[in-house]
């Protein structure tokens, strides 16, 4: 297991062909990771979600993806057949999408959808899957799992939908979980419980986690390593606990924009003076 890293990305590029020319959304991202917690932070539109989707072969059809290397546990993602990709997605890699309500099937109950993803990952009877569904919903801090399992996506609150999507992805106990803003709609106490659940999965199963988030403090406390993205590139990689000592001007500027209770109420927040030089 130690020989090849869980994820290897070298010079990943995602380009959209548009009438007005082509637009490079991801411009040469490289990193590799093992069974660790890797945080990705960065500017809105900098290519974080696309990087995650590229690992699952889920980039939109009008995009061209290239890379010197794009591998999961030794599997070449760019060369994989659709069938192989489906197998990887169902059993070994989970993706918690940024817009959970939009990604869930609107005409199937939540319980049905989580049970399907459980059955896809391992051979279980429908009855066992049902039990596992309720357990997993409880683990993501849903107080009334029976009701929620019977509910349709539009009947969920924003934070409940996020946790349902999380339940759907962790129930298969993947080797790699890509979680795109998985806790942005959760109140702080529920958020802590969901993070603790992820920590348990990582400890028990040796799962690797890519945690995309705008919550700088959370990422620095929860993750092992942080990748900072700006305009389609990685500008800085650093140990999570050293985030406050970041050296890149973008990262420093970002930290400076955090709204904090130390600043007087009603006063304008500092903003970022974006420099052309950051867009290398």
């Amino acid at each position: 297991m130690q020989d090849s890293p869980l994820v290897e990305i070298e010079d990943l590029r995602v380009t959209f062909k548009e009438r007005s020319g082509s637009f490079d959304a991801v411009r040469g991202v490289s990193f590799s990771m093992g069974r660790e917690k890797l945080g990705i932070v960065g500017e809105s539109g900098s290519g974080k979600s696309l990087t995650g989707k590229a690992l699952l072969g889920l980039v939109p059809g009008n995009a061209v993806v290239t890379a010197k290397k794009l591998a999961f546990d030794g599997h070449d993602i760019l060369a994989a057949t659709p069938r192989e990709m489906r197998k990887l997605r169902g059993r070994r890699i989970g993706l918690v999408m940024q817009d959970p309500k939009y990604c869930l099937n609107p005409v199937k109950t939540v319980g049905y959808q989580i049970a399907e993803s459980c059955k896809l990952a391992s051979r279980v009877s429908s009855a066992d899957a049902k039990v596992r569904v309720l357990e997993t919903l409880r683990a993501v801090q849903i107080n009334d799992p029976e009701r929620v399992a019977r509910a349709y996506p539009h009947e969920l609150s924003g934070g409940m939908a996020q946790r349902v999507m999380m339940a759907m992805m962790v129930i298969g106990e993947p080797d790699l979980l890509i979680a795109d803003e998985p806790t942005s709609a959760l109140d702080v106490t529920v958020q802590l419980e969901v993070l603790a659940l992820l920590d348990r999965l990582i400890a028990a199963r040796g799962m690797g986690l890519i945690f995309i988030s705008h919550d700088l403090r959370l990422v620095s406390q929860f993750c092992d390593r942080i990748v900072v993205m700006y305009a389609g590139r990685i500008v800085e990689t650093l140990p999570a606990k050293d985030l406050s000592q970041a050296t890149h001007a973008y990262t420093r500027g970002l930290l400076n924009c955090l709204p904090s209770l130390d600043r007087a109420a009603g006063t304008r927040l500092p903003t970022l003076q974006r420099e052309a030089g950051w867009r290398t």
Partner: protein
Amino acid sequence: MNKGSLLSLDRLVVTYGAVRAVRDLSFAISPGECFGLVGESGSGKSTALRAIAGLAPIASGNVMLAGQTLMGPRDLHFHRRVQMVFQDPYGSLHPRQTIERQLMEPLRIQRFPDRPDRVRGVIRRVGLPESFLYRYPHQLSGGQRQRVAIARALLMEPDVLLLDEPTSALDVSVQAEILNLLMDLREERVLTYLLVSHDFGVIGTMCDRLLVMRHGLAVEEMSNADLRAGRATSAYARQLLEASRGYHPEALADVG
């Protein structure tokens, strides 16, 4: 009830079948005030906003705007005065219309003049290039979609903005720009905000008062000064403030 208030809820109850999403909620917001709603996921915050916008089934209680009880479907005049930014921007945008068309349409319905100029102006104010007007929602990142939803609400130049987690998908630098924009607008003209957020930094920056909710009920009302001083009287509000200090084992022990 509260004579001076612009927007108020009086003993609001919203039920979906057996689910009591909002059980008994009252608050009153003065003109020009920014009022925050925080609380447990699933506690009824979005439902309260939707009820104000006429989008949730009110079982009992009242919603009042400028002294008048609102009933039935909301009319054009309401949408001119009150705009909402939904928690889920994807769901609130039309998937098969360009951003430009979705921004132009409400302006046309409300018979605004200078529509193309307004649309270009507002898209720039939320920090997006004009070229994005010709895209569809699925061609944007999460935070870009959220900014389109904010732009659409601002276009109407409303008196009241219902903001449901309006910056949850934004990095902190873009968030700061949007929050500054909201503060500037409040200074330019009297604008009243009802803001839902899980981020106490955002609430503390923006809000004069806040209400902590749980299980469809109001738990505790706090002033901005209370929030900053950590003066919470209820156990739940204290727990929330404690957890907002971040991810560390002690916080978990408290919650557990």
